[in-house]
């Protein structure tokens, strides 16, 4: 089970409180986690990744295990602690946004 923490605006859109838990087949990556997130909450399509290019939006960051994963390749495996569910995958609005 992958744990995902959304920023407040996206929690509102998805109508969730607290963390989201997702089942992801195989070794989890940014892409597979975001695919699973968007499949569960279609309203989030386009809010984290550009709809056409599937690239991370410029003012969104991905953190986990005290690391900035924003510039990792989308298909790179996420840290083992995220894959095991002991640490969450954090989707964060950049400090420069808003």
């Amino acid at each position, binding site marked *: 089970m992958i744990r995902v923490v959304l920023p407040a605006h996206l929690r509102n*859109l998805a*109508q969730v409180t607290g963390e989201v838990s997702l089942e992801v087949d195989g070794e989890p990556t940014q892409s597979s986690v975001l695919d699973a997130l968007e499949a569960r909450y279609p*309203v989030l399509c386009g*809010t984290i990744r550009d*709809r056409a290019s599937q690239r991370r939006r410029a003012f*969104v960051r991905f953190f986990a295990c005290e690391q900035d994963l924003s510039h990792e390749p989308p298909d790179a495996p996420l840290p083992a602690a995220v894959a095991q569910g002991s640490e969450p995958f954090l989707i964060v609005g*950049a400090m420069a946004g*808003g």
Partner: protein
Amino acid sequence: MIGLLSTVFAATTMSFLSVASHRVAAPARGDLMTAVRVLVGTRKGAFVLTSDAKRKEWEVDGPHFAGWEVYHVNGSPVDPSRLYASQSTGWFGQLIQRSDDGGKTWSPVDNHFEYDGVPGTHQWYDGTPHPWEFARVWHLEPSLTDPDTVYAGVEDAAMFRTVDGGQSWHELSGLREHGTGSSWQPGAGGMCLHTIVQDPSAPGRLYAAISAAGVFRSDDEGQSWRPVNHGLKSEGIPDSDAEVGHCVHRIALHPDRPETLFMQKHWDVMRTDDAAESWREISGNLPTDFGFVVDIHAHEPDTVYVVPITSDSQHFPYEGKLQVFRSRTGGDEWEALTEGLPQRDCYVNVLRDAMAVDSVDECGVYFGTTGGQVYASADSGDSWEPIVRDLPAVLSVEVQTLA
């Protein structure tokens, strides 16, 4: 659709039995059931302001979509309970929200705005070619005849349309691809399609205005387009009377005289009487003819309103006095309307989508400021009062006349 983002506010006690569309039908004189609903988009959410026909006491609902930029909220003229809102942030991009109950509750609809084909380039701020990139929806214009059909004006400039109530959007790419697109350049606000006007007397006739490209007209429901800017003269472009390149800020049409349109350009207030085939200047005695808004009285096609702004480099009212100017002669001769408006130390702006008129017997006029005030006049502009004065910066104002 899943998800109702906004808080559900207490229902108003009024029951709207039937609804007159914007500017089209005036209710019977003295009809106490008449009401108005003002739809306000701001930098940090949307607000819905309601009043009876006296327009003295107001209920304020909001913020809806709190914390998001709401460039525009607009209602269907044929089903005024049907509203559409453009919601965006730099963080998370664009959403479109729809309400089927007059703005009490909202649901997100499709937010996928994909240009047709390979969109090519336009001019960037520095004059170099720059690829078309979707940024946001500036303006939503519901069809005059079908509540499920809505035109959307977007940045980078293009027009999209939904015919299924927002479940899917498709570009009307004949506009972007008609031939001059590679020479369009951004205005200070971005390269946006900000104004969409439908001609109620000529089904299929649409106008679009783009900063900084100009006005374009379609006579076939948006399939094909051509620039209609003859008579416009602009400094800041190499050829001052070029076919395109003009920073048109706003155009307005009165349904009783649809061949006539009024324009507030970057500089110059303009008028056409031949469906935009040719334009002439009507700035007359305005203290400055820079500005953003222009609108027309609901019942008097020759009564026009503008809010002069000092200049392109000073986006605030002339001499710090917030003044609406009204012409009763279709331009050239203008009078300052000041009663109830601050006449000193006022340095707000009034943005292009932030003026509207209702169609109550005594026409109401509304405008919002970047200082968060929404001013209303219930007497055609003779006197003004703020409905609210401390909202986030106002980006857009629309009004629905409900009977």
